[in-house]
């Protein structure tokens, strides 16, 4: 392997560089401003927000809106705050992400290393699943959930997201394993490893980057999903996004903007954390195999 300097960027002059930075800062501010407004206002008493000055820092710093949003805000008919729905979302997201990732990995493994007649047709059909709009599957899905007795439950939502996510996760893993040398699988076969041993001992340990990509992708999609949650969630399985909507768009009483801001940040936080923790792998994973190295 050739030794290359890690910095492969094109060298530029000072003026260009200053210009680039200025532009980058402008865009960073542009994108961060809404988030800034949300954070600042979530720590203000309601009166201060009503007085205008959305961009000002809080004069009276308070965590009351956060506590209210979490514990006691009125969601639909009960004043429970967002916490039970946060739990609902976690209970839905974790198994949904885990299962769809595992299925995607196994599909990718079979589609690349244990090819069967018609494997390309199967893959093509799974790929097609990525392009089906959510709205189309609502009614058939409702029927199926009813038939298997999972309607309105968290396991039901998990199933919906797993089914919908498998197309994407299969695509990710198939493309990753396509570049994985088949000779390794053959060597393991000769060494006497079984189908699952090859998967767990040889392929999976080398799949770090693509697992991270899949987990981030699936986590973000499942966590942020509103339509399936609103359609198939019941009172005790309603995810965070739907609860947040119920909090924000309630048509009675005073609009507690500070509480809404706090709630919205809560809803966005997990995906943000996942991305910050593993974002480096995300970029690396997406680029994996793009350049031979």
């Amino acid at each position: 392997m050739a030794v290359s300097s890690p910095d492969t960027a094109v060298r530029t002059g000072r003026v260009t560089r200053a210009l680039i930075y200025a532009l980058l800062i402008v865009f960073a501010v542009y994108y961060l401003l809404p988030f800034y407004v949300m954070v600042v206002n979530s720590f203000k008493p309601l009166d201060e927000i009503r007085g205008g000055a959305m961009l000002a820092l809080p004069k009276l710093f308070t965590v009351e809106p956060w506590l209210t949003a979490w514990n006691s805000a009125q969601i639909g008919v009960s004043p429970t705050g967002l916490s039970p729905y946060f739990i609902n979302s976690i209970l839905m997201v974790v198994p949904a992400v885990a299962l769809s990732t595992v299925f995607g990995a196994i599909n990718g493994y079979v589609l690349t290393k244990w090819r069967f007649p018609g494997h390309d047709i199967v893959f093509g059909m799974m790929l097609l699943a990525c392009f089906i709009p959510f709205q189309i599957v609502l009614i058939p899905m409702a029927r199926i959930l009813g038939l298997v007795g999972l309607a309105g439950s968290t396991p039901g939502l998990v199933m919906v997201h797993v089914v919908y996510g498998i197309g994407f996760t299969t695509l990710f893993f198939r493309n990753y394993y396509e570049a994985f040398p088949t000779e390794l699988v053959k060597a393991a076969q000769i060494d006497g490893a079984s189908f699952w041993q090859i998967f767990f001992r040889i392929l999976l340990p080398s799949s770090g980057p693509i697992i991270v990509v899949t987990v981030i992708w699936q986590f973000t999609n499942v966590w942020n999903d509103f339509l399936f949650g609103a359609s198939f969630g019941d009172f005790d399985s309603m995810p965070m996004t739907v609860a947040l909507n119920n909090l924000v768009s309630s048509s009675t009483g005073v609009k507690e903007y500070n509480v809404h801001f706090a709630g919205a940040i809560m809803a966005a936080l997990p995906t943000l954390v996942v991305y910050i923790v593993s974002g480096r792998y995300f970029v690396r994973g997406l680029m994996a195999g793009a350049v031979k190295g």
Partner: protein
Amino acid sequence: MAFLEIDSLIKRFGPVEVLKGINLQVEEGGFLVLVGPSGCGKSTLLSMIAGLDTISEGEIRIKGKRVNELPPSQRDIAMVFQSYALYPNMTVGGNIAFGLEMRGVDKAERDKAVARVADMLQIGHLLNRKPSQLSGGQRQRVAMGRALVRDPQVFLFDEPLSNLDAKLRVDMRTEIKRLHQKMGTTIVYVTHDQIEAMTLATQIAVLKDGVLQQFGTPAEIYNDPVNVFVADFMGSPAMNLVPARVTANGSAVAVALKRDNEPDLLLEAGRGAASLARHDGREILLGIRPEAITDTDGADRTARTVVHAGCHVDVVEPAGSDTFVVTRLGAREVIARMRSDARVRPGERVDFAFNMDKAVFFDPATQARVA
């Protein structure tokens, strides 16, 4: 009954037949080299012996037992791949021990076996490294270690040296030969490098387009090629193949080679003269290896039929140990291999010694050997 028998083996991919009825037998402890140009089916044949490819027709037997239906793990074989195929997530030790682990050998015994193999291949100090931290030669050793540790009935090598640089390749070649002599295990080895085939094999199978061209010892393949393809493929520089006309006069049989602005060169036939006489007056292809054409002092004194003839020297290529001299005969470039201190200059007329004992003759139409 041979140790490894390949019986009328056919492989089809869809309608395409890539192996067309291969028959081979290897004795226990033999070293069979499958050689041929790329796409001749040699790697497919190896994969079928390994059990990684299915068999369309025919039978493979190891120790008289049919293995067609056995999965690779139950054939008691080990394979070294061209890319080495080391598991990237495991250490060198883990790589070598993996096959034993999968077969349920306990840890203490595994460690002992790994240590023994590592010692034999001198890779003991590398056992805790990952494959990515090794050089090409070291990876090659580890790949061999992984095969050796299981002590299988048959070793399969799929172009194991083609990723190494020239010097290392020669070293590893010697090493493989030494290992074979020491262990005495049967080996099937695939290569496209005819020198590897010649140096390693006890038996060579030359393949082309899925058809077995010739199967024999290295000496048979080299000295008695059955057709033009085998003659041309084996040996470097390649055998000279020159169009010539047979002229028989009683018991004296000779071939006449056309020359530019000169009368034909007549070469008396040595070996095979009797069968050549039947082709009197016909065009044939004379095959003669560069080392059978020498300067007069370098000629083989034990040879019975050596023809001396003055030829025009076109090009001289000193190669250190030898000097290759090119002349034009029968409208072809003919290479002669002379001693390094032979005094030859381009443009001169020099006496060449043709050792006709070593000459072979082919039919230009069928490409088959006639004498």
